[in-house]
C-alpha cells in the first residue's frame, strides 16, 4: 500500500506539472518506421563517399499495454556516433534495448559519421490502464488514484444516513474526485455499497444499494459529476473482514470506492 500511495502521487503530480494526461489511456496511430535522410546529404561536398545509413530501427511490438515491455532494435552503417533520445543516450552501432514506457513515445535515433548525419524515428503506442504491480509504471493508473485518494464512508446498522464521520470522508472525497476526473478525463468511479453479515443477504443487497446511492447523492451535491459515478450493491457478498464482532461489522458497513472504466 505504501508503494502504491507514493506511486499514485507521483503520477498525479507529474500529470499536473506538465499539463499532460500521461495517466490517461492513449492510442496514437503513427506511420511505420521511416529513416529520414539528412537535408545536408544532397549537398554533401564529399559526395561519392559512404554516408551513414540506418539499416533498421524498429520497436517490437509497436503497441503495448501499460506496464508491458517492448524491444527497440537498431543497426546503422558508416557511423561513429549513434544515440537514441528519451533517456537512452549513446549506443553501439547495432543492438537492442528493453523499454517499458508508461505512455506512447517516439524514439529518435541519430547516427553521425564522417560523411554526414542521419536520423530515424520509431514509435511505441501504449494503450490501456491495465493495473500493474510494477512500481516503475504504477503511478499512471486510475485504480491507484482511486485506491489512494478516496476513503470509505461508514454507516450505522440498517441505515443509509450520511452521518458526521461519513460527511467528513465524503467532503474530502469530493475534492479528490474532482481532481481524479480532471486527471483521467474518461475515467469513472464506482461507489460500492456494503453491509455487515447480520441481516439477510437479500435485504442487504437492497440496503447496500441505498448506501451507495446516498453516498453518490451527497457527492453530486458537492459538485462531483454524477455521470461518472456508478453505483453497485454488494450487500454482504464482499466483506472485508469476517469476524463476528462490532469492529468488523462497522468496517463492512460502508460505501467503498473503486475504479471504473
Amino acid at each position: 500500500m505504501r508503494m502504491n500511495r507514493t506511486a499514485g502521487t507521483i503520477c498525479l503530480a507529474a500529470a499536473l506539472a506538465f499539463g499532460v494526461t500521461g495517466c490517461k489511456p492513449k492510442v496514437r496511430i503513427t506511420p511505420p518506421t521511416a529513416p529520414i535522410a539528412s537535408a545536408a546529404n544532397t549537398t554533401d561536398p564529399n559526395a561519392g563517399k559512404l554516408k551513414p545509413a540506418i539499416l533498421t530501427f524498429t520497436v517490437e511490438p509497436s503497441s503495448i499495454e501499460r506496464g508491458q515491455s517492448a524491444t527497440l532494435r537498431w543497426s546503422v552503417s558508416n557511423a561513429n556516433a549513434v544515440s537514441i533520445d528519451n533517456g537512452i543516450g549513446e549506443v553501439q552501432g547495432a543492438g537492442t534495448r528493453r523499454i517499458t514506457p508508461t505512455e506512447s513515445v517516439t524514439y529518435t535515433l541519430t547516427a553521425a559519421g564522417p560523411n554526414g548525419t542521419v536520423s530515424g524515428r520509431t514509435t511505441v503506442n501504449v494503450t490501456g490502464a491495465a493495473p500493474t504491480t510494477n512500481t516503475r509504471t504504477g503511478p499512471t493508473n486510475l485504480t491507484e488514484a482511486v485506491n489512494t485518494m478516496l476513503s470509505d464512508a461508514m454507516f450505522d446498522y440498517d441505515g443509509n444516513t450520511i452521518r458526521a464521520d461519513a460527511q467528513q470522508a465524503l467532503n474530502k472525497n469530493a475534492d479528490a474526485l474532482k481532481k481524479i476526473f480532471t486527471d483521467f478525463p474518461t475515467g469513472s468511479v464506482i461507489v460500492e455499497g456494503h453491509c455487515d453479515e447480520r441481516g439477510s443477504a437479500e435485504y442487504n443487497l437492497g440496503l447496500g444499494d441505498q448506501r451507495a446511492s446516498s453516498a453518490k447523492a451527497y457527492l453530486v451535491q458537492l459538485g462531483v459529476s454524477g455521470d461518472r459515478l456508478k453505483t453497485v450493491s454488494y450487500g454482504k457478498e464482499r466483506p472485508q473482514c469476517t469476524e463476528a464482532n462490532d469492529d468488523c461489522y462497522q468496517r463492512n458497513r460502508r460505501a467503498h470506492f473503486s475504479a471504473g472504466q
Partner: protein
Amino acid sequence: MVSSQIIRTLLFVSFSAAALLGQGNLIQSVISKTAGKPNLAVVDFRGTGAAQPLMNTFNGTLYSDLETSGLFTMVSKSFYPLQNPQRPEDLKPTSGQGMALADWAGTPVNANWLAFGYNSVQGGQLVLYGYLYDTSQKTAESAQAIGKRYFGSVDEGGARKVAHEFAADIISKFGGGSLIGSHIYFVRESGRVKEIWQMDYDGQNQKALTHSGSLSIMPAVSNDGSKLAYTSFASGTPKLSILSTEPGRPLRFYNQEASLNATPSFSPDGATVYYSSSASGLPQIYAANLDGTNFRRVSVSKAIQVEPKVNPKGGVIAFVAGPGHQQIYRMNLEGADVERLTNGEGEASNPSWAPDGRLLLFAWTRGYSTGAFNIFLMDPSTREFDQLTSNAGRNENPSWAPDGRHIVFTSNRSGSFQIYSMLADGTQLQRLTSSGVNRSPVWGK
C-alpha cells in the same frame, strides 16, 4: 393433502399448548411422538452377482427415504427375527424364525408392515424386486400391498434410483407425496466466487449449473421445476438471469435499467418473474414477463422491498421490507392491501409458501440477538407461528419440498454454512452438503 392435514392438526395442537405454556416450539415434541404411525420393518436386501456390491448403497438409500418421510416408526433392526424373507415364496404360514408374517407382527418386532425383496442383474440391468406386506393379514396373497420390479443401471446411481422409486411407492401408499426427481438448487461459495449448484434431495449428484466466475446467488425455481431465476453479478452489477434446468442452459432475459435487479421468483404459472428493482431509486417490487419485457412496478413505498414470493394459489405476494428492521409483509398482486405479518420484533426474511399456499416458512431473529436467525412457520390467516430450529447456529433460507412435508434450509450449526433438510415439524434432520460453503437452497420438482 394428508401431509398438510397432519401439519394443520399439529399446528392446532401446538398452538393450543403454546397458549397454555407461552412458548411456540411444540410442533417437534408433538409430531415426533410415535403414536398413530405404522411400524415399518425393512429387511436388509441382498443382491446376487454384480448387484451384491451395490447393496450398502441400496439399503442405506431405501431406509433413509422411508425414515425421513416421517410417516413411519422404523422398527429397530435389533428386534428383527434371525431369518429374513427375500421372495414371496419364502413366506410360510408358520416359522418362528422370521419366514412367517406372524413373526414380524408379534412381539418384540410389532411391525405393521414389512418391506423386503432382492436385487439381481438381468440383461445388463439392475433389477429390484420390491415387496411391501401387511403383517396383519392371514395369507401372503392378501397381505401383498406392493410387488413390483424396478430397473436401474448396474452402478451406485442405479442402486439409488431403484431404492428411491421403491421408497416413493411405499410412501405414496401412506399419503406422502413423491420427491422422486426433485432437486435442491443452492449456492456454493468458493473463495470470492459463488455459483448455483444442484443436487438430488438426498444430497447426491451435486453439480454446478453456472460457471460465471462471479457472484451467482439467490436462486428461485419455477413451480414445474423447469426454470431457475437468480441474481448474477457477471456484468458488474446485480441483474436477473434465468436458466432452464434440464439441460442447464441460459435463457434470454432483458434487465430493465437499474443499479439493482435482484431476488427473483416465479409466479405460480411460471409466466411472470417477480423481483426487486431500484429502477425508481429505491428497491421496490416489480414484475416482468419471463424474458424481462413488459416490466412494471407492483408496489409503491418508501422502504426497501425485496424477496417477493407469490402464493402458489395466487392473489397474494409475501415479501420482505423495511423501514427499519426487515419484516415480512404481504400485499395483493396490484401492490395494495399491504399488511405486516411478523409483529415487528427482531428481523424477518426469506418467506417461502407451502405448496398448498396455507403456511409460510421464514427466518426470524425473534427472541435472539441481531443476526441470529431461526426457521419459523406461520399461518398468515391467524398470524400464529411456531419455531422449528433453536440453539443450533444461524438458520436461514427455508424452502418447502414439493411434497409439502419436508423443508430445506441453510445452517452454520456445524461451523460453516451447509444445507440441511428435515420434516416441517423439525424432525428427521439430514445434512446434505459438506464440501465448501453452501447456502440459499430452494427445492424444486
